[in-house]
């Protein structure tokens, strides 16, 4: 661990890009702006890699606020996240150079993109909770700006706003967690908190509450049940945004936060149960919704939800390293899935409805390959990345309770189904798109009749991601295959070692085989099923799923509209408040008016008063 000024530099590079592009992006122009942004992120990646290989780094600015240092910490955990964020982030940046080609807001896009990377890096590297919170809200801001990137359309602006507001509910949890931890331990530095929690001398119930607050924060950021609603709408942003922010990195920040605070969560039955419940619900909800969508990006968005649910379950059962492992593999295959979708959208001139697609394997062979790998990785086919991380989650779930394992197996069947559905609808069958007179779009000037393969700048990032989706799983093989895999000890060094009973070898093997077979079966069945005409029961299910099982409607009816109504009511009431004060004034006025009635103007009346006063005063003086 070295104190080094290079650590804040990792953050400063993309931040510099944000400033430069924000101030003079128009002059830099296309495509230099994109390359500049990408290279800065690459710089961060390389710098981070060097520091990580040197064994991590720290940087502290003491007393940023009274009692709160501004400290950054690059350890194995944040290092892995840094690799994912900067690495995958770089690839998506490059891909976006092609995707955003010709957009009037080209440089603005990359400026925001760099801002996001910077904020995300602050979130990851922050060692002091307020610093983490800077990143936490910073990514929220970047997400807001990017979802509403095409803010000319009301829908996009609305979605962006919704995302920000819902995220803020989570932020409130984070804030309260800070308040509670501060009042308990008098510090907000994570590394100090670790020591103080180990030292003991506090109420465990209170610590549970702190964990609960953190969980709320994580739920908001990772779009878990019940705060899922913003993520599908967030697809209003450009596709690279969906790939980077709403699949690979930002939404996993909640998981990262929980893993970072494993020392608080660990061994707490209540929190474990809660997290598992939330994760399970999200995994099923996301999967089921995904099966009903027609918008290609919303399909993928819901699959992301489902996968985030898996990660939460992993955290809940105490498999912290597995959660991070899944983040890594998920970052690869989900980014790949999104960017494949993006390539298809790009090829079709902005078309996003899968009913207007199909048969793409003929037109876009390279993209088809990417899609296929993404599908298999996401569906959990042996031996792709997704299989290994999901298998680890399943194994830990079995330790937690066989019932959980069964449920999780069900969720992974659904995962296989939605993956293959996406694949079949987009790439298989015949092209169902419109004739050349179809819609035209900025991304494909002229509205080409035939779908066209993407340029190299978009293909190469996908090639690399495909390699990742194929290969990264091997760094986390189960112990029965690779007794000491790479990632588990590497991460536990940073997370803290929470020993657990390893499953017997036979059980482990059985579980692996079952999960592999089930995945293959589900993929095959889905491949057949989604090519047919849909049966009626499926149509009905689809209608409900398309609306996200009416979650938005329920929220609007129960929360949003009453809140708005109450706001109106309070506004009127507040005006009434002033009237109330005015009423207080007229009360005094009325009292004065009553006194003024004595002012009759009749001379004799006044004289009588004089006489009365005289008698009284004299009487008081004389008889006293």
């Amino acid at each position, binding site marked *: 661990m070295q104190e080094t000024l290079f650590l804040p530099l990792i953050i400063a590079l993309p931040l510099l890009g944000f400033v430069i592009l*924000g101030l003079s992006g128009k002059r830099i122009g296309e495509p230099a702006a994109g390359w500049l942004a990408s290279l800065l992120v690459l710089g961060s990646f390389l710098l981070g890699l060097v520091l990580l290989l040197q064994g991590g780094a720290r940087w502290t600015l003491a*007393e*940023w*606020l*009274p*009692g709160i240092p501004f400290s950054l910490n690059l350890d194995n955990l944040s290092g892995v996240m840094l690799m994912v964020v900067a690495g995958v982030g770089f690839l998506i940046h490059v891909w976006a150079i092609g995707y955003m080609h010709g957009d009037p807001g080209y440089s603005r896009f990359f400026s925001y993109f760099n801002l996001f990377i910077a904020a995300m890096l602050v979130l990851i590297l922050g060692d002091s909770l*307020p610093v983490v*919170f*800077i990143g*936490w*809200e*910073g990514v929220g*801001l970047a997400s*807001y700006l990017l979802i*509403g990137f095409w*803010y*000319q*359309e*009301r829908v996009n*602006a*609305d979605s962006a*706003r919704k995302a*920000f*507001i819902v995220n*803020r*509910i989570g*932020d*409130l949890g984070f*804030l*309260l967690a*800070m*308040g*509670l931890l*501060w*009042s308990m331990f008098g510090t907000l530095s994570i590394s100090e908190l670790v020591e103080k929690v180990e030292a003991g001398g506090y109420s465990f119930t209170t610590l549970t509450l702190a964990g609960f607050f953190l969980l709320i924060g994580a739920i908001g950021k990772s779009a878990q049940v019940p705060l899922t609603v913003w993520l599908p709408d967030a697809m209003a942003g450009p596709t690279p945004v969906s790939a980077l922010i709403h699949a690979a990195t930002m939404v996993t920040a909640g998981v990262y936060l929980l893993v970072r605070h494993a020392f608080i969560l660990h061994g707490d039955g209540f929190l474990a149960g809660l997290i598992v419940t939330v994760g399970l619900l999200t995994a099923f909800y996301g999967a089921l919704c995904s099966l009903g969508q027609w918008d290609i990006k919303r399909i993928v968005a819901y699959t992301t939800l489902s996968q985030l649910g898996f990660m939460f379950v992993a955290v809940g059962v105490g498999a912290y390293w597995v959660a991070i492992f899944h983040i890594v593999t998920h970052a690869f295959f989900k980014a790949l899935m999104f960017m494949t979708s993006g390539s298809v959208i790009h090829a079709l001139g902005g078309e996003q409805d899968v009913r207007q697609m199909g048969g793409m394997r003929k037109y876009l062979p390279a993209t088809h390959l990417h899609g296929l790998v993404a599908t298999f990785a996401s569906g959990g086919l042996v031996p792709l990345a997704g299989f290994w991380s999901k298998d680890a989650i399943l194994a830990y779930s079995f330790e937690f309770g066989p019932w959980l394992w069964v449920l999780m197996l069900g969720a992974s069947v659904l995962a296989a189904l939605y993956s293959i559905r996406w694949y079949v609808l987009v790439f298989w069958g015949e092209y169902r798109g419109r004739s050349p007179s179809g819609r035209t779009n900025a991304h494909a000037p002229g509205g080409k009749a035939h779908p066209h393969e993407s340029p190299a700048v978009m293909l190469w990032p996908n090639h690399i991601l495909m390699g990742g989706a194929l290969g990264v799983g091997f760094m986390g093989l189960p112990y029965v295959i690779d007794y000491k895999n790479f990632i588990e000890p590497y991460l536990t060094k940073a997370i803290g070692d929470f020993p657990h009973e390893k499953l017997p070898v036979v059980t482990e093997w059985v579980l692996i085989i079952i999960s592999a077979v089930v995945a293959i079966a589900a993929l095959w069945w889905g491949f057949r099923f989604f090519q047919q005409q849909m049966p009626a029961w499926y149509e009905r299910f689809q209608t409900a799923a398309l609306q996200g099982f009416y979650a938005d409607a329920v929220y609007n009816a129960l929360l949003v509209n009453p*809140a*708005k109504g*109450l*706001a*109106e009511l*309070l*506004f009127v009431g*507040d005006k009434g*408040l*002033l009237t*109330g*004060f005015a009423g207080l*004034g007229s009360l005094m006025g009325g009292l004065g008016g009553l006194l003024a009635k004595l002012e009759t103007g009749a001379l004799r009346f006044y004289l009588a008063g004089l006489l009365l006063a005289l008698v009284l005063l004299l009487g008081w003086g004389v008889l006293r």
Partner: protein
Amino acid sequence: MIHVGLWLPLLAGLVLLIMPGLGRGFAIASAAISLGISLVLFAGYGGQGVAYASQTPFLPEAGVYYALGLDGAGLLLWIAVSLVVLLGVWIADVPVRFLAYTLMMQTGLLGIFAAQDLIFFYFFFEATLIPSLLMLWFYGGADRLRAIYTFALFTLVGSLPMLAAIFAVRFLGGADSFLYTDLAANPLTGQTASLAFLGFMVALAVKTPLFPLHAWLPSFHQQNHPSGLADAMGTLYKVGIFAFFKWAIPLMPDGLREWQGLLLFLAAFGAIYAAWVAFSAPDWKTLLAYAGVSHMGVAALGLFSGNGEGTVGALYLLGASMVYGSAMFLFIGLVYKRTGSLETSPVRGLAKHAPALYVLGMFLLMAMIGLPGLSGFPGELMALLGAYKVSPWLTFVAFLAVIAAAAYALTAFQKLFQENTQAQAVPDLDTREWGFAAVTVAVLLLMGLYPKLFTLYLEPLGKALAALFGGAS
């Protein structure tokens, strides 16, 4: 130096009133010199206690001294006030006489923060009202008469109990004079303290403003000149938090103990209530008025916690909200200049033709809703940390405003700038406005990213107050 800094703006204002031909340049020069003096004073501050103290007998028989001095909080607020006045006279499109009143008001505000004698504090506290009323009277909207009535009545009626309490503090406390040092050495105790504190409470709650005595604020802002300059000055005039911190609590710590529960409740409830109400505000000024009430609720929550973090947070938030709140009003003045209206409901889509204006607005808005890294956050965080120790539930209630703030601010913002398929064609920032934007953004970032600059000096004050208040929590 401190005397020059205090009286120069008044002098400049009077000169400008007599010779309006000197124009805006003169006002800007005066404001710039003021800011310069504040910064020099800040740079020369030793970090402990009251610096630049001076005291001259004024009415020695009555124990009144013309005593000035600045501590960390006073310096922070001096800089904030001077900065906002400079920004205001720089950017606002108003008649020259308006600028003169602004400068005169600046002296009053600086005096409030520098006074070390309770009578002089009261004098400045009340005298500042005059230019404020004049601005409203000469340049207000059609329905200004009522706003003036409301504003003046709330302020004056509120101040009378405080005046009574001031004498109670001096004579029942047994101090020899109205000097701060003297009074603080003889604090009131017990029942007397709680009654006298109540007197201060009423006056200061009007100026904080605390629910439910905020009722004058919306009409005040609605009726003021659309340039936003008067509103900015009004924002600076929200000195309640400072006065609580500087006078009410040190002189009557028992009073705070007595009323702490009520005050915490009012602060927390006001924070969420005002944020919620702001959602339905029909125009930007009303929205900002309620937003201000909400923020001050949070600050008050921190201060009334009576511990070090809370106090630092409250003062920092006060200073920061002076800057971003005022800047927001001035910004809305720029919007008014372009659109001629302040209503929130119509879709205007200004971003299309005025991207720089949009970015500036985004910055200010994010600072206002407390985005970390911008000026609002450090104060909010410290207030939260302090308040949570005392009352977790009220903290929770107050910080629901975090969500509400995002809702009201972004909704109105979206209407104004986004959805611009049929955008109103408006000019983007000109050179003068660029200057305003650059300074504002720089200050917002500085305050957000390097709060230590000021908290370093606020921290001892917070500790002192916490020590005074003792572990009554």
